[in-house]
């Protein structure tokens, strides 16, 4: 009786113990992610603010009048202490207020009056952010199933002609710059065969099918870039698993190869594959900047590049913060999903 009760307690306690440890690991990762984001925001702020020299002067150039320089300085609060400014900036950013862009501030000071109608950075970014998320969503919807299927097939028929051809093709597509792939796609799918539009002029209130059609070419370019990485990593993950004894066992039982992969290997390969997918979506962030410029896609990447060219610091800072946050978040997701999808942690003995 006593022994049975002890056994029961043991069985009762062990799973919750493991679940607790999973939760604890996840909580730790989340805290670490938040801390990283906080430090990254300091780095982004410091990169702009702690350099020597007068920033307002440098922005306006040699010919600026002292009044204009002074107007910019007070406008941006450059006469205050950096730590205080950082606190204000971060506090504002947390509430969705990212300041007002320089392009507008400049204009106000030249006119000599502040009309109070200048758009804030947040207003500029919000619609573009939605557009970029749409582009990323379409890309992921095409790339993920495509890459995982290709990866499984390459692992299944490894060292065949198919595997070698995909190896060469994916290696080439990884090595090509995004704008090369983009122009090749434009050449063949938009100019020589006018199937898809080469300019993505997206505006509010467009029909979904129109919007999808205009997004397709940039999404295909990004798909080419991301699929190659994803497919190679999926292939490696599955080949790694195929070497394990239980797969050998399944094969010796005479199960057909496709079933071995789908029923036996895939559930255990899920964790690495999910990890790969999340990591590669993080890689999209870099690709989005160049691709949006090529297709004149009104997303956050294009705004970022335009602001870099006219040195619109508040917008650059805000975009940088958003990109870094997305990057950290996706890496964090990859981390947490690979913990959660580990069968050993989900089904404790």
């Amino acid at each position: 009786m006593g022994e049975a009760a002890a056994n029961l307690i043991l069985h009762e306690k062990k799973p919750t113990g493991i679940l607790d440890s999973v939760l604890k690991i996840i909580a730790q990762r989340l805290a670490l992610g938040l801390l990283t984001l906080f430090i990254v925001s300091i780095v982004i702020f410091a990169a702009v603010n702690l350099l020597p020299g007068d920033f307002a002067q440098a922005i306006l150039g040699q010919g600026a009048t002292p009044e204009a320089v002074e107007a910019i300085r007070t406008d941006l609060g450059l006469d205050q202490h950096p730590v205080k400014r950082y606190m204000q900036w971060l506090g504002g950013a947390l509430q969705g207020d990212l300041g007002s862009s320089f392009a507008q501030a400049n204009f106000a000071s030249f006119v000599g009056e502040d009309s109070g109608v200048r758009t804030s950075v947040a207003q500029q970014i919000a619609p573009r952010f939605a557009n970029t998320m749409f582009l990323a969503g379409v890309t992921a919807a095409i790339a993920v199933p495509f890459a995982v299927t290709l990866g499984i097939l390459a692992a299944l028929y490894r060292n065949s002609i198919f595997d070698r051809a995909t190896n060469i093709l994916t290696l080439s597509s990884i090595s090509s710059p995004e704008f090369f792939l983009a122009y090749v796609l434009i050449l063949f799918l938009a100019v020589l065969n006018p199937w898809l539009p080469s300019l993505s002029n997206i505006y509010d209130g467009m029909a979904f099918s129109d919007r999808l059609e205009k997004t397709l070419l940039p999404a295909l370019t990004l798909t080419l870039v991301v699929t190659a990485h994803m497919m190679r990593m999926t292939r490696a993950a599955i080949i790694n698993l195929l070497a394990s004894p239980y797969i050998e066992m399944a094969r010796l039982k005479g199960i057909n190869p496709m079933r071995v992969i789908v029923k036996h290997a895939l559930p255990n390969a899920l964790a690495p594959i999910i990890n790969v997918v999340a990591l590669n979506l993080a890689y999209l962030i870099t690709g989005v900047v160049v691709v949006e410029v090529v297709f004149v896609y009104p997303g956050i990447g294009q705004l970022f590049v335009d602001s870099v060219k006219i040195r619109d610091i508040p917008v650059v800072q805000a975009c940088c913060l958003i990109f870094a946050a997305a990057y950290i978040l996706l890496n964090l997701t990859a981390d947490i999903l690979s913990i959660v999808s580990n069968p050993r942690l989900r089904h404790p003995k």
Partner: protein
Amino acid sequence: MSGLMTFLIALAAIAAAGWAFRFTGQKVTGNAPRFRDMAFAVAFGYALGTAVLIWAVWTYVQAQFILPEAEANKYFYFVTAIHGFILFAVLAFLFRLLGRAVGTAGSRKLFRQMPLTASFGVLVILLYTFFAIFAAWLAPHGQEQVFAQANVVPGGNPALGGDPAFPLGTDQIGRDILSRLIYGAQNTVGIAFVTTMIAFLLGGSLGFLAATLRGWVDQSLSRLVDVLMAIPALIFALLLITVASAWVKGTGLTIAMVLIMALIDSTRVFRLARAVGMNIVVMDYIEAAKLRGENLRYIVFREILPNATAPLLAEFGLRFCFVFLTISSLSFLGVGIQPPLADWGTMVKDMSSFINYAAFAPQVSSAPLLAAGAIALLTVAVNFVVDWMLHRSSGLKE
């Protein structure tokens, strides 16, 4: 709609062909294991591959010999791509044959085991190095020289608006594209190479230092690198370049960009150097050197560095590709290598609108693609060589 129907019918036909192929194979060979155990997916794959091959050959023959020139223009790039592919394959094959016949016993052995992709890579890298070093002698004109003839069509055929003096034409303000492509090898590749070297010097030495000293040096450097790596490289580079552009212009900005990229990439090198260094530091010979009373410099440069060359070399190739692509992307966005230096990324940006003429004058639109292709060719080549090196050193069969 009819396009979709054609696609579906073609798919069904290929599936039927695959099934027929397997069925006849089974009957003809008397159920040989190869055909008996063939999955339908594999048969479908063979049929699909054959269909694509037939389509490619048919299109090529049509464009080359059958269609009139005006209609064949549509397939100009397709035909050029096939010519380029065959040319490089043959060159790589000949180069490998040459390598097997000439040279020391060691190099001949190396070439004997080399796959065709790797020999292609080595050949392309050698070609680029040659052009980069001798650009000033090989280029017909200067990189900044502006001629009166602007917008000359590539191809050198006067009937199509070309000029034999400018084989690849001139750009909108009349600079010779061929010369700028050749100088681009010097500028783009050279700057990427210098950047990678600085990144390796900085990241490598700090990484080894962290591995040797441990303690607070290691901790503070590693945490700093963690933070810097949490921002995507291209995004961080764009932020820092914005800041730098407030102070420096023109060539100064190019130098600033080199330093910024070197700093960002040194974090990645630091990670690897530290990890490799950690494994070496625990070896007995390091202990012996410490007991002999050798100083830090001796231990890092004479004991650790020689034992870490193999992984660092492979990393150098990959890092170079990454730096090269990022710098090209920055130049393409207009904030990388600044004029008057000729550079491939900037050339693509400047001439990108030519692509829209491809349908009726394919030669015109080849200029931006040549510059973009020059970037892609080098990175593909380096990746092929690194892939082969990693495959060889890991001894993997898969």
